[in-house]
């Protein structure tokens, strides 16, 4: 069974589920055909591309991940307005800064997810990750307080991610 | 609309031609690409400009001429293959002649008439 799983199994179950769902969405409504084809694709595509995605970390808590996404989306929406204001207000000068963020996450995918999240939320962009994956360089558009920023990121994003990618 | 479209094609052609007449491989390749954009737009336009008549049966009340679109598709693919080839050839020429001039390094490659021939391979 394990051998079978190795060669013909589902290397990335989460991915397979996602692919299946997306396919149903794409197929313009659920039908016999789309389910069959969706299942086939959800099985085959991860299998074919498994070599390209080795040693992926298991996502322990998929539902935690969903709540994480919802939170991020909310953060983006709220904070966007701030940035828009900043941009559209010609009198306000931005106070940019490069901030080094010490990482607690270890897996590169987790780090990348964090970096991506930071970039998507207004006011911060992940500029670089150190070679040893311990530091994250963030460019901040308008910085009040560095410690505050680092703390916010750690609380809002890094800890949930640590739980998700265990 | 037609004037704008024609002007676009004219500009693309002119820019492409100008670049094709440059002396280095890179601008020439860019020029060829630009010219092929012009040609593709032109070929496409032979079916005339239609705003909301799709070439998909059942999608609209009136249809656009699908044939030029198919021809352009073929032309795009062929153009891509050719561009790829000419790009690689430009590199090859750079590797072989040490220069990116379209004629290679003139002195090194095209000996003037009357230049001394290489010594005979004799024993």
């Amino acid at each position, binding site marked *: 069974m394990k051998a079978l799983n190795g060669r013909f199994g589902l290397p990335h179950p989460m991915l397979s589920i996602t692919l299946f769902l997306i396919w149903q969405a794409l197929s313009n409504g659920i039908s016999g055909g789309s389910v069959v084809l969706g299942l086939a694709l959800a099985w085959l595509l991860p299998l074919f591309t498994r070599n390209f995605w080795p040693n992926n970390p298991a996502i322990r808590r998929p539902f935690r991940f969903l709540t994480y996404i919802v939170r991020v989306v909310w953060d983006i929406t709220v904070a966007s307005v701030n940035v828009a204001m900043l941009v559209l207000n010609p009198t306000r000068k931005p106070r940019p800064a490069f901030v080094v963020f010490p990482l607690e996450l270890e897996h590169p995918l987790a780090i990348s997810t964090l970096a991506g999240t930071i970039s998507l939320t207004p006011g911060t962009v992940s500029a670089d990750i150190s070679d040893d994956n311990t530091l994250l360089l963030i460019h901040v558009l308008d910085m009040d307080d560095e410690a505050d920023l680092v703390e916010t990121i750690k609380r809002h994003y890094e800890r949930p991610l640590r739980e998700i990618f265990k | 609309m037609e004037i704008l479209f024609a002007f676009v094609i004219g500009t693309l052609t002119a820019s492409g031609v100008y670049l094709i007449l440059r002396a280095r491989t890179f601008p020439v390749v860019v020029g060829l690409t630009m010219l092929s954009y012009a040609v593709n737009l*032109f070929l496409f336009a032979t079916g005339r400009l239609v705003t909301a008549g799709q070439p998909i049966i059942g999608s609209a009340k009136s249809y656009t001429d699908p044939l030029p679109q198919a021809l352009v598709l073929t*032309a795009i693919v062929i153009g891509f293959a050719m561009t790829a*080839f*000419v790009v690689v050839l430009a590199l090859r020429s750079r590797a*072989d002649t040490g220069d990116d001039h379209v004629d290679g390094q003139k002195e090194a490659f095209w000996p003037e008439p009357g230049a001394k021939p290489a010594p*005979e*391979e004799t024993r």
Partner: protein
Amino acid sequence: MNHWLTAPILLPLLGGILQIFLSFAPLGLRRTLGLATTSLILVVSISLLLLADDGAYRVYALGNWAPPFGIVLVLDRLSALMLFMTALLALFCHIYSTRGTDAQGRHFHALFLFQLMGLNIAFLTGDLFNLFVAFEVLLIASYGLLMHGGGTARSVPGLHYVVLNLIGSSLFLISVGLLYSVVGTLNMADLAVKVPQVAPEDLPLVQAAGMMLLVVFALKAALLPLCFWLPRAYANATAPVAALFAVMTKVGIYAILRVYSLIFGDQAGPLANLGMDWLFPLALVTLAFGVIGALGADGLRKLVAWQVIISVGTLLAAISLHSEASTSAALFYLLNTTWVVGGLFLVTDLIARQRGSAADRIVTAPRMRSRTLLSVLFMIGATAAAGLPPLSGFFAKVLILESVKPSPEMGWLWSVILIGSFLTVIAYSRAGSIVFWRNVEGHVKDPGHLTLPVTVSAGALISLSLVIVALAEPINRYADATAEQLHTPSAYIEILQTPVVTRRESL
């Protein structure tokens, strides 16, 4: 519908695909399969030639879509002749390449076969846009072949060849598009029907399209002032490739013959014989320039490459006269020049291999190992190419000279051709006597041995000029019939009535 019409296309295609799969297989296997494919193509071409000789048009509606909607293949005498001419040349070039050319780089056999596929599509297709596709197939393969074997001398001429042809392709598309935008069709027979009916206010568009198309074909055919890419490109290609390329300019000539007799022929109303008045003087200047090039050539390959241009000038001069007799003469000349020039490229290569660093340059060098054989082959080839008796070139030239009736054109044509011949003789005799006879003491280190395949293929191509003489009568009869067919486009137009195979609901 005769499925064999697709064979000259499908055979090289399948053979080429096979070569892709076998790209890491032993060379011997690839050679065997490649040669087998080319031989099969020759066999098919011969059968098609025999088939076409009855003078009927054979139409093959690809995809079972009736013309003018689908693409058709049309076999007539001209296309059959081109197929045969190409296949025979290709077989000998292919045999020659097994001497080691094919081992100099990857994918030689695949490229070679695809080249044939492109050529054969061009000769068979009855659709103008498909002719464009055919040109692209044969061009891209020729680019690959031209660059085959690497070497620093090839890349710059290769680049020029490719860039110019890319511009040419753009022109082709513009012309086809322009034609379509007025007459709304792509099938050549349908174009022939509709071009004469074009409204007067649309005439300039069609005329521009026709003239630009002529530029495209003239570029492929290497007509002055569009011929400059040729000598260096051909002179630097590997021998079998250069030899095969003897047919490349002929594709342009074929296209001119086809399109300008069918679509812009005598019956095309206000656009009748479009561009032919330009073609004649340009062809003569091309011829003259080719001769000058040959006189000034410092290497045998260059000399032969200029011979290609001489041939183009001669052919187009005859074709532009637009009479049955001159077309027929041009066709006769076409066979002669294509094979002989191909053979000369091969012989030149054999010579170059035995002359060490002097290679093909017209300079003093140590004596060749196989001097006698090579000199005989060269002499026959040169005689045939220069158009001296008793070889085919002479008869071809006489046919062309004869085909024109007394007129100012006759004066020009005769003078240029005859003086050209004279100077060509001087060029060849000078080159030959220096290369073969003006020897210095010494030995070339490790001169190439003549092996059976290379000698046979080079010799065979050269000897074809003798065969043409022996078979001059039937060949000429075929050429006459072909010219007659070409000059009667009304028969071609009838292919539009081709019925398709009745469709069943499902197979």
